């Protein structure tokens, strides 16, 4: 199963758990499952994060395919100057 890594701010939904295995073939499916298991987390991830997958940061990554051993790092959305 994909392995989800949460920032400290998001761990309040998971009783402090930082690394969670979640089933899903896309980042969006993973977020849906996270919302089912931890109500509120999915919404926080959709509106407040990008996803680091395989060393690359993706913005709005819901349809990005992930494999069974993919590490997904949910990080804050970035812009710049």
């Amino acid at each position, binding site marked *: 199963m994909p392995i989800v890594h949460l920032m400290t701010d998001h761990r309040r939904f998971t009783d402090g758990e930082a690394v969670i295995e979640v089933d899903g073939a896309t980042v969006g499916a993973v977020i849906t499952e996270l919302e089912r298991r931890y109500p509120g987390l999915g919404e926080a991830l959709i509106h407040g994060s990008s996803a680091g997958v395989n060393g690359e*940061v993706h913005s709005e990554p819901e349809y990005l395919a992930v494999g069974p051993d993919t590490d997904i790092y949910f990080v804050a959305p970035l812009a*710049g100057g």
Partner: protein
Amino acid sequence: MTATENPPTYKWIGTRPIRHDGYDKVTGKARFAADLDLPGQLRGAYLRSPHAHARIVSIDTSAAEAMPGVKSVVTGADFPELAAKNPEHDVSVNVMARDTVLYHGHAVAAVAANTQEAAAAAAAAIVVEYEPLPALFTIDEAMAEGAPLVNETNFTKFVKSDEPSNLGTVTNLERGDVDEAFANADVVIEREFTTASVHQGYIEPHACVVDTGADGKASIWCSSQGHFRVRSSTAEVLGWDVSRIKVTPAEIGGGFGGKTTIYIEPVAVRLSEKAGRPVKIVMSREEVFRATGPAPASKVRARVAANKDGELIALDAWMAYNIGAFGGIAGLIGAMSVASYKFPNLRLEAYSVLTNRPKSAAYRSPSAPHAAFAIESVVDEIAQQLDIDPIELRLKNAAVEGDLTAMGMPHPRIGFIECLEAIRDSEHYRSPVPEGAARGIASGFWFNIGEQSSATVHLNEDGTATVITGSPDIGGSRASMALMAAETLGLDVTRITPLVADTESVGFTDTTEGSRTTFATGMAVVQACRELVDEMRARAATSMGVDLDAVEWVDGEAVAEGQDSMGIPAIAAQAKRTGGPLTATASLNASGAGPSFAVHCCDLEVDEETGHTKVLRYTAAQDAGTAIHPSYVEGQLQGGSVQGIGWALNEEYILNDDGSLDNASFLDYRIPVASDLPMIDTIIVEVPNPSHPYGVRGVGETGIVPPMATLANAISRATGVRLTSLPMSPPNVLRRLNER
């Protein structure tokens, strides 16, 4: 340049052709937004708030409307109310106040008249009755228990709360066991740092010309870093479909993050719509200072623990960013920007804090300079205390591929070590420190981003090409697009014309920000050129009468065994016979932006009688991934360095007690000029980004991160005094020297 890996040999990339817009720029032919005039055009002027926080009781525009030459007047009542959760809500209210003014200079009304003078006089004739409210200007005031609300429509982001708040974001990032690490440390340094609000200081004020037609559509010519964002934000603020707005990007006279948002365009549209005439608005310099976003002020408490051999074992930091009167995420970004050192134990607590000051805006590597000033100063102090060379201490602790950033994600391939080594091995660092001077070192990090870009490449009938993108060129990106196209097509770069098209002539493209354009828009250009090469191979195969698989593309020519090769002009000449015009388009959402590191080195001397700091020599090394056009990479490194030096030594917003800005001109807001500084030497480090076809990382922002600590570290070595507040201006330096 320092190439650290074995890069491919390129024909065009890495060369330095004259930029395609260069002739127009140096001869004065380039057209900036304020250069445009339309027949029947009116001029716009604002009435701005004299209060930092007040309820608007009433606005009487009747006298203004009756004045000679006045054609239209708008107030907040002319704009729709957006829901508080609408992403453009704050932009809308910042563009024009509704029932409350939130900072001194907040727009209250605007007038269009035949002349600038008539518009200004009419704006001054508008009568507004205010009910003053408590105003807060500092982080401490806004975070105090029981503090009044700065903005009743602000809710802390990313948390579920029904209560408005003075906090934009609250962020906690943690790993390891920080308390145990500090308990076991050999050295602990703790300091509190403050920085002032500083403006991006672009030379060209915000300007636009708007023509709203009888068909209900608006054409906007303006100066911005992202004309698609101008279109979408303006449409949202007006309650229009985006299809009613066409935005044409003018040449831009600097932005540095400050032109990633809008201030004047919706107002000009409404004025034009009501008057039935085109309207031009050009901000004065005073308005730019008073009403457009500076970078936040900040307060950072940083505590670092180390072993006696110089291993940094823990960082514990509290950060607060003063983001002005609207929500924002500066504190979150500041915490996330802590990414340079391994720090096995880390605890960051960061806040974005609202105050009754202008809404802060992005400025090169937004939020990172504040954090780096603190952390790089404390790290340097540890090197001083342990008597370790400051570069060696940084090399011992520098993050490499696989090490975790503060946000928990491992770094991809990065070039921090290579930048440190480049400075260590430079002639500058190996030369003796001049007598009476001292040397400082510091580093900086910035993420860089990808986002959406589009590009179209047309092969013209004579074999020349036009490359069209939607990324405003703020740093020489047209030349970079042409070079990447030249490399991919195998076409002489002088036969390529790079253009930036309006919102109706190229696919959607995100704003030029986050050092993304050469990376992401460059990817779109390369992808479009590759598709064009495939099409040219197919056309050549048709002309040759061979299978497509038999045709290879070699240095701009279609080559097939037993056939005369066909160059691009020949293929272009055959286009009508082989299938019609040759053109290709690519659009993408780029991922894989490569983080960029920089290391700076400075020699300076401090006049202990006046407190004046003179920079004698300055060298900036930065990882560009691959330098597409080295001259413009060097320009970015130099520009970032100079702006950072200004931030460090002189620049600051000085507020009066009523929240008005006391130094709203370049006479009193002191930015560096050429005579203040030596030539900034540059070292381009090239650790290619594996996610870009040519290894690009993006270089526009990181250069502003190291200078503040670089100078503070040098001043510490020169005077024995550790300065922790910016700016380190002569009176502030003298005060600290006298406290010794």
